[in-house]
Each structure stands twice: as structure tokens, then as C-alpha cells.
């Protein structure tokens, strides 16, 4: 079983973030692997463990600090790490990012075929959930997205997908792309041995030239969308905190009535 997991570097949700010229400004020490990608790594590790053989590749596309994302995957137990980084990727939209990821995946797949690509359900920074679909399309593989359950048997992957009105079971022949939700599993914690090993493990650094992608076709120039304005949401005005000393419920009711909400 050979599985590649895509992991994204995202800024720490608790830290302050900002935009510069339409892109997220990040510093090296305030981010890590997108939390939901831990579920993707976990799903891959579990499948390889159950099969009793196989390898897990972690792949990220991003600036120099994005290497932290694949290092985290190594800490969790991934066997190989690939970091695609190139100045020309800056400003890429979801379609550009998908193109770069797909080219890197093909490079791995052409050497020794992969069975699955597993992604997180969404990156918690932007939460678009568009990339898995775009990536599957670029690869020309089946998309089994938003999996709450995933099983692989006899060359077929089957998922359960929780939609608001129904639970769907969907299957496809391998190789396929699967995105997993946080219901799919409970990510493990890295152990000390893996943390130490991850520090020294090699990370393959690929440029766009290495994977045969023309920068002009994926970067800011090619982006179909551009952020033209960004500002922190103003804090709520007139915030009030009261302590209940027997009248708290009345205060609440009066507040709703005053605002015309009840």
C-alpha cells in the first residue's frame, strides 16, 4: 500500500495573522501543519499498518517555512517528505496549487505507482475545501471526498460521506483521491523516537522546474481570483459582561427584547 498525503502549512489559529498584498503574511514560528491534515496522515498510517506493508509520502507546496508541515507528518510516522517550493508559486489560487501538487504526485507515481492520495477536508486558514476536488480532476483520478469512514479492499476504496440529508456510501477503483473529515479517526501523538528521527530525516526539495511546471501557468498571474482588500473585523462595540446574582436571566431577556431579537 503506497499512499501520498498532501499537507498544508497553515498559520497558528490562535496567533495574529495578517495580509500583505493579498497574501497571508506568516512568520516561521507561528504555524504548522493544518490541523485537519493530521486526520489524513492518520488515515494513511492506519491503512499501511493494516496492510502490513507500504509507505506514506507527505507532500506540501508552499514557501520556505512550509517545510514544518511535512516535518510534522514525519513526526507522526510518514516515511518520506517532499516540499515543493518556488518563488513562482506565490499568489497561486486553488487551481494553480492543484496543478503543482498534481505534477509532484505524478513524479512520485511514475516511479512507483501510488494506490491513494489522501488530503484533509479543508485548510482551517481559508476553509475552502476546494482543493481536493481540483486535485483529483487534475490527476484524472476518482474523487472520494469528505470521508467520515474509509475502507480499502480488493483494489477498491469505499467511503461514507455524511451529507446533511443522507449518509452516502461511494466507491471507486484505485488509484483514487480521498479527503477525510475529522470524524474519520483520532490522530495519534508523535512519540519521542519519531520526533528525534524527523529532525534528521531528509526532505526532498523540488522546484517547479523539477516537476515540469511552467511558473506562469500557476502563480499570481494565472490566478482567477485576487484578494483586493483585507482588514481585521472591527471588534464588537458596546460589549457587556454581567455576573448573575439572581437577575442574569432577566438581563438576558431584556437585552434581546431591547435589540428587537425576541
Amino acid at each position: 500500500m503506497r499512499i501520498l498525503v498532501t499537507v498544508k502549512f497553515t498559520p497558528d489559529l490562535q496567533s495574529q495573522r495578517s495580509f500583505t498584498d493579498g497574501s497571508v503574511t506568516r512568520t516561521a514560528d507561528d504555524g504548522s501543519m493544518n490541523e485537519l491534515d493530521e486526520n489524513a496522515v492518520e488515515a494513511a498510517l492506519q491503512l499501511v499498518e493494516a496492510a502490513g506493508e507500504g509507505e506514506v509520502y507527505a507532500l506540501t507546496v508552499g514557501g520556505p517555512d512550509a517545510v514544518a508541515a511535512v516535518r510534522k507528518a514525519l513526526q507522526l510516522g510518514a516515511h518520506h517528505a517532499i516540499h515543493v517550493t518556488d518563488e513562482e508559486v506565490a499568489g497561486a489560487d486553488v487551481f494553480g496549487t492543484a496543478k503543482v501538487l498534481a505534477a509532484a504526485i505524478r513524479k512520485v507515481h511514475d516511479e512507483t505507482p501510488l494506490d491513494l492520495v489522501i488530503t484533509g477536508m479543508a485548510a482551517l486558514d481559508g476553509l475552502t475545501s476546494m482543493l481536493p476536488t481540483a486535485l483529483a480532476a487534475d490527476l484524472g483520478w476518482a474523487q472520494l471526498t469528505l470521508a467520515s469512514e474509509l475502507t480499502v479492499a480488493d483494489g477498491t476504496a469505499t467511503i461514507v460521506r455524511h451529507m446533511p440529508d443522507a449518509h452516502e456510501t461511494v466507491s471507486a477503483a484505485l488509484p483514487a483521491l480521498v479527503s477525510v473529515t475529522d470524524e474519520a479517526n483520532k490522530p495519534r501523538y508523535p512519540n519521542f523516537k519519531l520526533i528525534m528521527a524527523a529532525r534528521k530525516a531528509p526532505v526532498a526539495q523540488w522546484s517547479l522546474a523539477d516537476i515540469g511546471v511552467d511558473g506562469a501557468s500557476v502563480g499570481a498571474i494565472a490566478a482567477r481570483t485576487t484578494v483586493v482588500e483585507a482588514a481585521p473585523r472591527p471588534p464588537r462595540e458596546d460589549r457587556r459582561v454581567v455576573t448573575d446574582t439572581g437577575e442574569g436571566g432577566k438581563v438576558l431577556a431584556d437585552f434581546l427584547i431591547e435589540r428587537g431579537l425576541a
Partner: protein
Amino acid sequence: MTTVAVLVEQRDGAVARPTLETLTLARSLGTPVAVWIGAEPGAEALAHLGAHGATEVRHLDAGDAGRLPKVRAAALGAAASDADVVLVTSTFLNKEVATLLALETGAGVVVDAAGAEIVDGRVETTQTVFAATWNVRTRINAERAIVGLRPNTTQAAALDEPAAATPKTVIFEAPETPETLVSVEPVPQAEGVPLAEAPVVVSGGRGTNGDYALVRELADVLGGAVGASRDATDEGWISHEHMVGQTGTTVTPALYVACGISGAVHHRGGMQASGTIVAVNIDPDAPIFEIADLGVVGDLNDVLPQAIAALKEARGA
């Protein structure tokens, strides 16, 4: 003339409320046409869509296969081939549909938008990002635009002089897909307004200790839906469909009441853009108070019954 296709969300054969909001927004961008995927729309649905601005209702059916993103995207593409702008409700399924349609047509996509307008011949959208702590404006550079709109971000309004929408059947053959829909198991729907569309949401977390009676009663009194934190759904106190947050349902009601919820960043990300936020929590240091318009530090078992009684009394008076 800009043609704006609006993908209709349905509930039991009727038009779901977010679609009326989307049609209202579509009118400000151009000429709306509705796309209805599924069993043929009834007279009431046609009237409802017409009253909110749809000039045509283009109907096509793909059966159960229409649940697959690729089939749905192909259907939408067939019905909206002449549209400059396609608007959908921002659901997980529609985000995938929008992505696939964009790959097919070269359109630019923004999902989770709170609004859209045309500026210098291009669509610009507004939305919140980073757990709803930032506002951004995005310009779609491509000639064609697809926008996923969040429910409750536009006020639905009927036309002053409603015109009838013309129904049209679109010939459509579903494409073969590498994915097979093996089974579909319907989930029982909560009564009342669905969480994502509710004008009021009252949520309970770990602080309820599993008893949702007070939360439900307050929701009833306020005409709202019941939400929950992930800890509560993980405990099995309430079904997963009620979970509010980044990996659950994102809500933007006019009023959000958080009861016994600490306000973890994952939860806040799914409700922080709500109109008014009220929090009841026994811990004065709970982070939820940082974003609450009104915070009541107290035991929800004391505060909620009193609030419910006072609201009922005010209503009776």
C-alpha cells in the same frame, strides 16, 4: 445583459430559503434564471422562484446519481451554459460542484461569500476568513464567475410585481463517473428551520451536561434552531448534524446564544460572523465572552429558566 444562473436548493420538493436570498442577490447582478436539479418542480415552487426574480426555471433530472459532484456539476453546466455568473448556496457539496464547473468553463470561484457585486465589469465578493476574524474582498479576474453564498447573508425579498417564471426542461445525459454511489441512507431531519438557515441559533456545549431541555426551550421561544459544540456531539448528547463550527455547520444568524460553550477557536470560526452573540457561561474567563455582545457569567440552569420565563411573560403582555 448579464445572465445569472442560480442553483436551487430544495427541501421536500419545496424551495429552501437560502435560494430566495441567492435569487435576491442575483437580481442586483443581472437577469436571474433558476436551475432545478431533481424531480420536476411543482406550481408552488415555480411561483416562489418567480416571485423572487427567476425569469426561467430550467429543470433537469439525474436521479440519485445527481448526488455525485461530477454529475451535479455537469447538470449545472448544461443548464447554465449561457450564464456569466453562477450562484450557489455555499454547502460542502456545492463547493465541489463549483470547483468542477470552474475547471470545465475557466470561471473564477469564490465560496463562503457574504455578498457579491459587479465592479468594472468583474464580480467582486466579500467574505470572512481566519475563523471570521478578517473581512476580505476578492475580485474574480475571469470572465465567468461562480460564487458560493452563505445562508443568512442577504435579506430575501420578493419582487414588488411578481412575474411568473417560465419552466423549461433541459435535455441532459448524466456522464459516466469513476465514482459509484453504492447506497444512500437518508438521515432524519430535525424539526423546524435547518441550522444553517435559522435566524436564531441557541447552542449548548459541555456545560449542559447532556441535558438539552433548556436549550431547546429557549430555541423554541426565540423561533430558532438548536446547535451544539463538538464536545456535546462527541459525547452523543445530540446528533452530529447539530454541530456548529469549522468542521460542522457554519452559521450566521441574526442572534447566536452559546450556553455552556467555552468558545474554542474551532467553534468560534463557525459562528463568529453572527449578528448578535450572547453567551451564558459559569467561567468568567471563558473565551466566548471575548466575542459576545452580552455575556452572562452564571449557571445556565439558573439563567436560562429565568430568561425563558421573562421572554414568555413579555410576549404574553
